[in-house]
């Protein structure tokens, strides 16, 4: 019986290894093929596009498409924000829209699903997540008449050669500014022992964390207090007893507020906070409705950015070929002050800080090469990085 369990475990790990192997090796093959394919399809595609463009509605196709990454459209963060933005524009203007979910999280599967969306009549495909960087790199040449919005990434191939086609609008956020706002606000509000629990160390999460640390440091300098920050990447975007126990141990050790920055990791932090009577900072969207312990959220305006992108497409001013960055300057990031539970940090303080961020008076280090914050020079904040 033991050998049976072992053999099952082995089978599972072998299948997993094979799938992963496919993911990376398969990227090469289609990349090479697509050059021919692109040339072939070009002529056909353009004709098709002409016909579909005129009578897409008559055929009953879906003009707007969203392809999800690993999550679903109701993940309360990334995909949902993008979906809501697209849905809003589509409903206002009576345009058909639909979402597609890939079978598995590989580049091949993403490309296939994007192809499916385009066959279904899509003229604009929204791809939320940095996992779409490679798929979009391939499909931007394959379907030159279809437009793409890529959230949180810029198209590149497997060897990190970046190229953004005229039909692609990559959207990046300055998460570091949102993190900065949150870090600054909580220290100004009197908290001195902070924590940061990220999910995986992907660029967006790292930027949040770096901004958070520097914001806390800046506020600590102004107030002349010392700030301690516990800092960790849990390595997954899931709610686990491990994440809960880590958060609980930080609270137990005196940490007052933890920035739960990684999807469901935040839910484990909230569970620990409810137990310890401590506080949480939410991420991506306003999470105050999920737990009373959430004092504020470091938000990026996902739905606004997608809405703007879709609108630009229909207005004929699609900003393809160049990356659109949403920052404090164009209200792309921020804190939800209406639902925040600050005691001394008020709207006026927030507006003053926001103005400094948008005017570029405050600059934030957001290098994502090293993720341990060891490369930051901090005056009053001490970071203990937890592996």
């Amino acid at each position: 019986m033991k050998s049976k369990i072992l053999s099952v475990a082995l089978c599972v790990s072998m299948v997993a290894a094979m799938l992963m192997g496919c993911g990376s090796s398969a990227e090469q093959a289609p990349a090479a093929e697509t050059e021919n394919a692109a040339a072939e399809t070009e002529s056909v595609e353009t004709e098709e596009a002409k016909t579909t463009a005129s009578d897409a509605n008559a055929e009953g196709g879906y003009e707007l498409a969203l392809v999800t990454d690993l999550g679903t459209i109701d993940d309360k963060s990334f995909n949902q924000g993008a979906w809501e933005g697209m849905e809003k524009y589509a409903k206002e203007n009576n345009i058909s829209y639909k979402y597609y979910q890939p079978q598995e999280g590989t580049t091949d599967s993403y490309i296939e699903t994007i192809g499916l969306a385009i066959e279904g009549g899509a003229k604009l495909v929204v791809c939320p997540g940095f996992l779409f960087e490679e798929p979009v790199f391939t499909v931007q040449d394959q379907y030159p008449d279809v437009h793409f919005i890529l959230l949180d990434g810029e198209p590149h191939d497997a060897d990190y050669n970046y190229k953004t086609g005229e039909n692609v609008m990559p959207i990046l956020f300055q998460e570091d500014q949102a993190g900065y706002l949150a870090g600054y606000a909580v220290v100004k509000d009197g908290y001195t022992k902070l924590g940061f629990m990220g999910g995986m160390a992907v660029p967006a999460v790292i930027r949040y964390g770096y901004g958070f640390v520097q914001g806390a440091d800046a506020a600590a300098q102004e107030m002349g207090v010392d700030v301690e920050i516990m800092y960790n990447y849990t390595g997954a975007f899931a709610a686990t007893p491990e994440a809960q126990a880590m958060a609980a141990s930080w609270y137990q050790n005196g940490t007052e507020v933890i920035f739960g920055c990684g999807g469901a990791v935040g839910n484990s932090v909230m569970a620990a906070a409810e137990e310890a009577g401590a506080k949480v900072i939410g991420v991506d969207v306003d999470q105050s409705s999920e737990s009373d312990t959430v004092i504020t959220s470091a938000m990026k305006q996902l739905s606004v950015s997608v809405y703007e992108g879709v609108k630009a497409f229909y207005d004929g001013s699609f900003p393809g070929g160049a990356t659109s960055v949403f920052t404090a300057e164009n209200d792309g990031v921020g804190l939800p002050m209406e639902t925040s539970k600050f005691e001394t940090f008020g709207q006026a303080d927030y507006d003053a800080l926001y103005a400094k961020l948008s005017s570029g008076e405050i600059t934030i280090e957001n290098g994502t090469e090293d993720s341990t914050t060891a490369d930051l020079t901090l005056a009053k904040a001490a970071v203990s990085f937890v592996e």
Partner: protein
Amino acid sequence: MSVVYFIFQQTMFFAIPLLIVALGGMFSERSGVVNIALEGIMTMGAFTSILFLNLTGKNMSGQGQLLIAIVIAMATGVVFSLFHAYAAINMKADQTISGTALNMFAPAFAIFVARIIQGVQQVQFSNTFRIESVPVLGSIPVVGDLFFKNTYITTYIGIGILILSAVVLYKTKFGLRLRACGEHPQAADAAGVNVYRMQYAGVMISGALGGLGGLVFVVPTSTNFNATVSGYGFLALAVLIFGQWKPGRILGASLFFGLTKAVAAAYSGIPFLNNMGIPSYLYKMIPYIATLIVLIFTSKNSQAPRASGVPYDKGAR
């Protein structure tokens, strides 16, 4: 001292679900049916009971609500495990395959139904079940801090299940027959025991405990249920083997797993452990390395039920 109490309380959050689910697995395997569907059963039990918490959250709270949720979780586990029982016992299917099928089915079903009912797949609940301090008992020095503070009623239910399991397995007619079916079903049959009925009983008990384990797993660690129990069903199988299919040893194994996992997760908040400079990877490896070592030394005289995993064939000699 407060650090010791804290670690102990955290250990319980890890150990109790593992204990309950591993005991469930024990009943199934002792009757001769391998149940690797524990992960799926946990998911289903957690799903229906958390959904109940979600739907009644406005009108109910506290321990009464949790107790009803426990009953629902166990009932769901029993119903779900019947699929496995039917395939493994009546149809004589390969037990690992039917178990795997259930493991794959459960999260898909949970997501599908959650979406139909409420539009999103995360099922939210509000946790009103934590016991700050048990009246009277909580004020006993040391013992009160260890066992009766910052706890859940499920912790005591888990301990109760452990004692009950040991008694049932070793001190009752039912337990003797169950064990006989796992060791040599033909002999048990010859002695007049209905092997099919005993195996059904074993699998259904494992379903009830698995479903309960799912609920116990989710409640302290999150604010919503997202169709996963993070592989704890499989970990419970490791605990079962580590515990050599015996209730007392399973308790030891789950406490050991719970302690090492709690320390691995919580060491960064404990100055003493954090300053020792031991890489976190070491803490995370300990339970698995220990399992390997124990298996190496015990595999020669392993206590696995002899007929476990073999479909019972009445006509076989």
